[in-house]
């Protein structure tokens, strides 16, 4: 009987720590996997190999050869398939063994023996569907609306932090830190340092927003689930950034492993024509490094927190968004663990 590797039944804690399954997650910038390239990456605690076929299609496979488990990422790119470096077994983008050169006609040929994840490219990033099991059909992926909007111009900023993914997402659901952590910054020096918040439901998630201030600092965030989990938020620019109003961020955070996170920030602005061009010029020339300095403030804070920082908290009203998010993820992790145990 042919065997296909899959990780054992994960507990709810393991799922919560390494990322929820049965959804799309951003994996890496598209530019990381050029045509003809092979790239090894860890995501959701597992090793994957990505490659781009000569026709431009990106593929993502478990990084284990079906023969004896060698890393396919050490192998050779053959246009539409990878040849394992160890004994030459060839595997295509669906995970099917195409050829066993050492033993032609071997019965492994034609069998799908490697896990392959469905992938899509959105806004210059590769997204993949991480099913709970190999058979689950992907849910449709609805592209975050700012990234699908013709009137919006964006840049992807990608980085990695030594912090659990939940800290990164909770940080985005916590607008109040803008007025404190980012008080010394080009964009978040203004506004009140106290606020009341409210949760406003939507059909795809919820808003967490200040009730007393909007358009002055980091004053609201929307959390959405549209096949992929993402946030949208808005922060004002100073007058020096020119016409076009505030900039927005579409943010995603993908677990690499339980202590490390991939961060995807699409910084965008509603600008067209010369206003778009001038913003893009300024972004490249002066603004990008200011944005980066702000992101480093978040990074330093989250990396400085103990991995169990959330074990003895004393929360207040500003943390309602965080609480809501945790409950949702926690409950879902329990459900997924149950489904795995029953399978």
């Amino acid at each position, binding site marked *: 009987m042919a065997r296909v590797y899959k990780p054992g039944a994960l507990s709810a804690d393991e799922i919560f720590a390494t990322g929820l399954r049965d959804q799309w997650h951003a994996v890496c910038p598209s530019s990381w996997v050029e045509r003809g390239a092979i790239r090894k990456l*860890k995501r959701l605690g597992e090793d994957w190999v990505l490659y781009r076929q000569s026709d431009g299609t990106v593929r993502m496979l478990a990084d284990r050869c079906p023969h004896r488990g060698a890393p396919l990422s050490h192998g050779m790119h053959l246009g539409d398939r990878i040849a394992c470096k160890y004994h030459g077994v060839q595997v295509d983008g669906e995970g099917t063994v195409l050829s066993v050169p050492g033993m032609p006609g071997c019965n492994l040929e034609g069998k799908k023996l490697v896990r392959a994840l469905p992938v899509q490219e959105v806004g210059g990033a590769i997204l993949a569907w991480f099913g709970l099991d190999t058979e689950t059909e992907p849910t449709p992926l609805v592209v975050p609306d700012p990234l699908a909007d013709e009137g919006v111009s964006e*840049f*992807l*900023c*990608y*980085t*990695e*932090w*030594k912090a659990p993914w939940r800290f990164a997402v909770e940080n985005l659901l916590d607008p109040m830190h803008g007025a404190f952590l980012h008080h010394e910054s080009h964009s978040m020096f203004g506004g009140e340092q106290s606020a009341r918040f409210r949760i406003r439901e939507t059909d795809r998630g919820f808003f967490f927003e200040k009730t007393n201030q909007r358009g002055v600092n980091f004053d609201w965030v929307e959390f959405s689930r549209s096949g992929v989990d993402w946030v949208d938020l808005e922060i004002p620019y*100073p*007058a*020096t*950034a*020119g*016409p076009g109003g505030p900039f927005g961020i579409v943010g995603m955070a993908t677990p*690499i492993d339980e202590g*490390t996170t991939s961060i995807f920030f699409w910084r965008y602005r509603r600008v067209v*024509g*010369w206003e*778009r*061009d*001038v*913003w*893009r*010029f*300024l*972004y*490249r*020339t*002066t603004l*990008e*490094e200011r944005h*980066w300095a702000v992101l480093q403030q978040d990074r330093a804070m989250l990396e400085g927190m103990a991995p169990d920082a959330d074990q003895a908290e004393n929360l207040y009203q500003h943390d309602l968004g965080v609480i809501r998010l945790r409950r949702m993820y926690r409950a879902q992790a329990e459900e997924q663990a149950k489904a795995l145990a029953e399978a």
Partner: protein
Amino acid sequence: MSLYMVPIQTRTGDPTPYERQLATAIEGVFGEGEHSLEGLVEGLNSAGVFAPDGKTWTAESFTTEIARLGDQ
């Protein structure tokens, strides 16, 4: 594992002296609260920050040049 931390991801080299000077001047005019195209062109000209050919900016020459710079 080394983490990916690259502050500048949208260009490969440093901005040229011309690009730096132009960006600083644009931010200067915008900082005055002047956000119209006409005002920007006028502001750049009166700051003495001219087009690469040494000519004063017009709305047309500026939009052409900034489209080039913005799309690189």
